[in-house]
């Protein structure tokens, strides 16, 4: 078999837990359909290899069974191939197969991959290899004509500057007339402004402008929030218009906040990266997946972003609570957590590692300090150690077990079912909680019990 480059890795892949597999599902219906297929009945000739490939034949309604293969070892996260006609990704067969595989050797024994699996793997790894070579040879197709590329970038910058100037005018008009009037005129005006910013190729400005339109209907206290967001948008406009005078790192932050594409630049960090959390947010057009990683050796926290078109799950998926040895490269910009996943050296495996935690005072201070590098930050990733979920009127807090202070939970967190998993896990006793801490409060994403035990996803 053509040797895929796994270096000296011979250890066999850890089998995942069922809920980690279910987290791959693009929607609830797939999750349900997949769990029904996670039993031996419809499967035949299922097997898996030490390199993290799982395959099997699933009996469907037709006479010919579907051929399903999953590659868990790819650099971009799991990849799936199934001969079924479903447009869901992964399809229920892939999910069912993985669930079956979580059950152990009985259902899915180690074996040599059959031809249909081997072929697909070979093309897939061949493609990955080519991509890597192209990347290392340094020249993409984009740089075919550096002069043309530079002119394109210049034209785009001019458009954005025009957009930012127009936006400044709108903000000034709003403040001159008073926010009180915004309640009436609000939404459509800002939708239209957002569309103009999309035309100006400044998606970051567009998103903020759209956000302004929704604030007047967001409940009590909206004038304060509207002023805050107007002021921060003004700050971003000004940052863009004067980016030449800013320090390099801050200028990069401004560019990325404005919505210019960037690519990872920092040196790749090879480490045992613990998967802290994975969650999706979706609007009508796009599903955005965020994966938080913690590097045990480098003591760094990194954010992986991936996207899926409406209705499809983003491809990258990593099981929460496991750790994998991989390279992670940071994107440019001060105070940015965003990073890209590089080469992987091991499949995800169970680990005793937990992120080191702080108390609530330190967590709040950390957010404050992070604003120095990026004043537009809404929150920072923080692990709280020894906190207890406490009911506070209609809301909830995470209170220091050894002190008398607490961080309130954000409104988003209060309405998630994960809140109750957190409360149940704690039972009134201290737990370790990873989440996002910012001006809206703390949003818990993953928790660990006080005693040794696996991570419990909360989102």
């Amino acid at each position, binding site marked *: 078999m053509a040797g895929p480059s796994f270096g000296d890795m011979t250890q066999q892949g850890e089998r995942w837990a069922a809920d980690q597999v279910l987290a791959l599902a693009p929607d609830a219906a797939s999750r349900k359909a997949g*769990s029904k297929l996670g039993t031996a009945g419809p499967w035949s000739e299922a097997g898996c290899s030490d390199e993290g490939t799982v395959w099997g034949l699933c009996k469907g309604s037709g006479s010919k069974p579907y051929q399903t293969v999953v590659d868990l070892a790819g650099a971009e996260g799991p990849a799936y191939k199934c001969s079924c006609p479903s447009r869901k990704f992964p399809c229920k067969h892939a999910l069912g197969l993985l669930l079956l595989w979580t059950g152990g050797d009985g259902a899915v024994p180690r074996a040599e991959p059959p031809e249909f699996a081997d072929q697909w793997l070979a093309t897939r790894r061949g493609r990955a290899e080519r991509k890597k070579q192209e990347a290392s040879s340094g020249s993409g197709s984009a740089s075919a004509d550096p002069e043309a590329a530079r002119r394109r970038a210049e034209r785009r910058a001019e458009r954005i500057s025009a957009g930012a100037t127009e936006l400044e005018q709108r903000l000034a008009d709003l403040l001159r007339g*008073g926010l009180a009037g915004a309640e009436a005129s609000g939404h459509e005006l800002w939708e239209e402004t957002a569309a103009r910013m999309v035309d100006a190729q400044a998606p970051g400005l567009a998103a903020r402008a759209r956000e302004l339109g929704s604030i007047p209907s967001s409940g009590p206290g909206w004038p304060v929030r509207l002023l805050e967001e107007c002021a*921060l948008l003004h700050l971003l406009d000004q940052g863009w218009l004067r980016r030449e005078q800013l320090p390099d790192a801050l200028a990069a932050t401004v560019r990325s906040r404005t919505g210019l594409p960037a690519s990872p630049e920092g040196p790749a960090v090879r480490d045992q990266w613990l998967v802290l959390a994975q969650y999706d947010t979706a609007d009508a057009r796009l599903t955005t997946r965020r994966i938080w990683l913690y590097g045990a050796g480098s003591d760094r926290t990194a954010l992986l972003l991936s996207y899926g078109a409406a209705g499809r799950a983003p491809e990258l998926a990593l099981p929460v609570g496991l750790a994998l040895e991989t390279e992670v490269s940071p994107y440019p910009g001060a105070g940015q957590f965003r990073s890209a996943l590089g080469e992987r050296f091991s499949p995800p495996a169970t680990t005793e590692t937990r992120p080191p935690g702080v108390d609530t*005072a330190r*967590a709040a201070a950390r957010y404050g300090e992070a604003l120095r590098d990026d004043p537009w930050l809404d929150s920072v990733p923080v692990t709280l150690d020894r906190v207890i979920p406490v*009911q506070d009127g209609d809301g909830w807090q995470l209170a220091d077990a050894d002190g008398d*202070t607490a*961080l309130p939970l954000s409104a988003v967190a209060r309405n998630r079912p994960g809140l109750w998993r957190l409360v149940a896990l704690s039972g009134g006793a201290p737990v370790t909680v990873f989440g996002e801490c910012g001006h809206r409060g703390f949003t818990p994403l993953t928790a660990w019990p006080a005693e040794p035990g696996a991570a419990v996803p909360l989102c």
Partner: protein
Amino acid sequence: MTRPPAPVSALPVWEELVTAALLGTERRTPPGCAPGPDAPTRLLDAAALETVRRRASLRPARSAKRPAPAPADHRPPLPTAAARRLALLLADRSGVAGGGRRGTAPDLMELLPQWLAAANGHGYAAPAESLPALLDAARGRTDLRPAALTFAGPRALWLARLNPDWRFALRAAPGGDGALPRPEEAERVRRLWDEGLFAERVALLASLRARRPADARELLAGTWSAERAEDRLMFLDSLRTGLGPDDEPFLEQALADRSRNVRATAAELLSALPGSALAARMAARALTCVSVDRSRVPATIVVEAPHECDAGMERDGVVPKPPAGRGERSWWFGQLVEATPLATWTGRLGARTPQEIVALPVADDWQSELHAAWCRAAVRQRDSAWARALLGSPTVPEAGGPGAVSLAERAKLLGVLAAGERAEWVAGFIATHGLSEAFQLLGVCAVPWAAPLGRAVVDALDIARDAGNYPWSFSGVMGLAERCLDPSEAGRFDGLSAMADEPEDASPGAGGYWAEAFQRMVTTLRLRATMAEELAPAPAPR
């Protein structure tokens, strides 16, 4: 979070900025700016600075009152594989498939009850993070509640107090955290009985009765006259558990109760005690109504129903007014026979066995009335010899079945028999009559089904397929079989789940549907076997 107190000298800059922004710079000049065309920009500059300053200075708030910690759960944790399985079973909860085609995959939600029963049998503690999903499942399905709440344990009740959606758990488990006093804690028992809420008192009485029947009765007798009528009824009902001859004096006294329902219940309980004075009085009355006419050939039972319902009968629980459409004499007669000890008849009707008595012809169309009353008596007195006689042989060919007894009555009579005999009777019935009337009878058989019963069901399904039926005509029995067949029977379906050639007169496509249904059967049985293995305790660490 809170904001630190502003320095005393500083103006409340932020508030002034917000006011100016709300009113507009045309009407209000923001602090520290000159009026003019630049005022909005100056306001935004100042607001940006203040916003970031305010955010950067956020500090934690004072913590609210901590909850009391959840009581400890000392049960051993679930094995890892079983915990995964539980997550899968609970994940299937969200949608019930409704009337759609069922396909080849098992109904996971239908397996949750037996998974919970098995986990409770092993005495495992539920993983804490699964409690919300367990409570939600129990909320949606009342039939799951007892097992789900037992498994969920004390922490679930702690949790339920924090979420109004789960209040039902507190009602279902009175005493809150399952802290009912133990029988030997006489002082606590007394206090709870005297001061507790109604639900708590019912639970206390039930738990005491299950362990120390006499103590429970005395507790109840002590406050009997002071209880409200509807409470007396509920309390009296809890004496069904562990009913014995010792209870007779108390029940006899309750026959004089002010409430008719209490009297009726007391009478019913007494008639379940064949040695009781009430049973003897009822027997004396019934005997005047039933005799054997030996002049006829063969000997025939003659019934002369009572002509009146006197005060004595009423006091012994006979309801004088019949339901609409029934004659009052036959109504009274039925109640007398049903409360009469069955042993009375073997003596009275010429030293015959129950079988022989049931076989006697009955004059003037009284047979169904008499046999129905005997059925009720056999169930109430849990008399297996009579139940067996009334059930008759399951293989008797007539469609109505033996004894002209209805299906519902048959199911109740079966409940009186021991599990093995019950299974064999139903197996015989299915072998003769097929599956079309078997559903209710199968429901009373012990799970997993005994081997002969399982075989009979599988054979009958095979026959139904060969006859060209569609499988959904048998979906009730199929679903039951998936849940109740012994998993080791899965091998029986190996031949059946393959696509068979369709017989010529078969319904179109039926073969494929049968193959699918049998596949689901096999898959479900295998899954149940796996579930049981996963729950087996890990070998003790060396």
